[in-house]
């Protein structure tokens, strides 16, 4: 007995998909090129979003260790050295557990063409005349533990320091350009008098008291600028959120590319495509079937591009450490940290990218097809 075969909805869709793939295969070169370009746009967008999101996440976690409040002194609108007696005054403010003068500054190393950050730790574990350097400094200056580290002092003399050790490599994201040294060496190198600090770091155990402490500081020392940890975190959110320069640049380019592709699709069909729709209608296909084929066509191209672009972006950012993005952030820096970010495949990011890339293209493919499919087949073929 012959079994009655009733095609289910799924099977019907598979036949339509077969037909769509054959139809795409007839314009293989064009469609492959389109998919490849489309995948590149997804790759660029996904790379930047993944990179900035991972970096923002790490920045937030690392900077939890930043001082609760940093107090700077402003002179004529510019950051200036702060008198040491303010350490005592600041520590007397209610809510402040500890105030500590910090000494740090920049040193332009002409031989390496790099800005190094010289910093005096609260408890420097080396001896006077020794420095602890970041991996980036060791790489650029070709310096190793035990070797001399000559520095040009502010009075023009050359001070020969000795490398004690390098900061371990996994912390390069915060330490690559650091040169840690003792307080007397710092003051001697930069000519900073003993009664001045670069700024003052405060410990405020109760987070809720931080804004009040900052307000008191502004009231008591009008020439000072308190920077709270929340503001430091906000800075990094601003640098790395979707409105930041890096993301906006790529987002604008990607949206423009999508816009051009979608506009091209929505503005009309090629003569071949119109003839194909006309023939399908003439041999008995109804409008919904023609639209389904066109929807599949858009979905096949955009879904393939989305999946390929997303996977390549993941590999690019989290396996190969984003070699295409690093030079952008690096700018003219000759000293740059080498680091591998915490990989994240955020469902929100994936679904946003999906909605941004697959849906508009599929819709843009269906609209002109709907216009052609609802007109008379004879007119469509003759047009």
């Amino acid at each position: 007995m012959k079994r009655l075969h009733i095609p289910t909805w799924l099977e019907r869709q598979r036949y339509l998909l077969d037909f769509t793939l054959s139809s795409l295969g007839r314009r293989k070169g064009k469609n492959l090129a389109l998919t490849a370009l489309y995948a590149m746009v997804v790759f660029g967008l996904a790379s930047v979003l993944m990179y900035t999101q991972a970096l923002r996440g790490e920045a937030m976690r690392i900077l939890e260790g930043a001082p609760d409040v940093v107090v700077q002194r402003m002179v004529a609108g510019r950051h200036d050295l702060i008198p040491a007696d303010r350490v005592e005054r600041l520590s007397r403010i209610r809510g402040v557990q500890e105030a500590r003068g910090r000494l740090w500054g920049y040193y332009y190393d002409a031989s390496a063409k790099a800005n190094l950050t010289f910093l005096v730790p609260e408890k420097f574990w080396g001896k006077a005349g020794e420095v602890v350097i970041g991996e980036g400094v060791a790489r650029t200056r070709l310096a190793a533990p035990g070797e001399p580290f000559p520095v040009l002092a502010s009075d023009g003399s050359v001070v020969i320091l000795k490398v004690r050790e390098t900061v371990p490599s996994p912390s390069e994201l915060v330490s690559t350009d650091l040169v840690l040294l003792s307080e007397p060496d710092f003051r001697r190198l930069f000519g900073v008098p003993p009664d001045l600090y670069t700024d003052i770091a405060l410990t405020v155990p109760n987070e809720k008291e931080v804004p009040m402490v900052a307000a008191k500081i502004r009231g008591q020392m009008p020439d000072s600028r308190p920077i709270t940890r929340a503001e430091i975190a906000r800075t990094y959110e601003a640098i790395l959120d979707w409105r930041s320069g890096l993301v906006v640049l790529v987002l604008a380019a990607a949206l423009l590319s999508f816009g051009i592709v979608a506009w091209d699709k929505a503005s009309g069909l090629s003569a071949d495509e119109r003839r194909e729709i006309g023939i399908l209608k003439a041999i008995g296909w109804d409008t919904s079937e023609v639209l389904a084929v066109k929807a599949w066509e858009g979905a096949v191209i955009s879904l393939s591009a989305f999946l390929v672009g997303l996977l390549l972006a993941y590999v690019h950012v989290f396996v190969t450490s984003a070699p295409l993005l690093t030079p952008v952030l690096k700018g003219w820096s000759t000293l740059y940290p080498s680091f591998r970010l915490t990989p994240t495949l955020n469902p929100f990011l994936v679904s946003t990218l999906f909605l941004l890339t697959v849906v508009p293209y599929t819709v843009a493919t269906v609209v002109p097809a709907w216009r052609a499919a609802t007109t008379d087949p004879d007119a469509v073929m003759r047009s």
Partner: protein
Amino acid sequence: MRKSDRFLLFVAGALALLEVARLHSLHRGRERNEEVRGMASMARRLGLTDLSLATDARYARHPSQADRFAPFQDHPTSLEHFPSGTLIAPPPP
């Protein structure tokens, strides 16, 4: 093999790779967590306020500590010309 089967196989393969990527992110994330905790503790010990992402311009090295007008402070009418300065926005007010 039908063309639709080949396409569905491709999609299934890509989804499987995405799952591999997710597992990789969990595994590597655990390793990196240790490193990030180490960096947070270093930031606490040394009083660090910024990541050393860009070292070309002084104000790009410590964006949280820099003035909003930092790129323009070197002299009047001085223009921002560092590539990192165009990507790193000034601290919010």
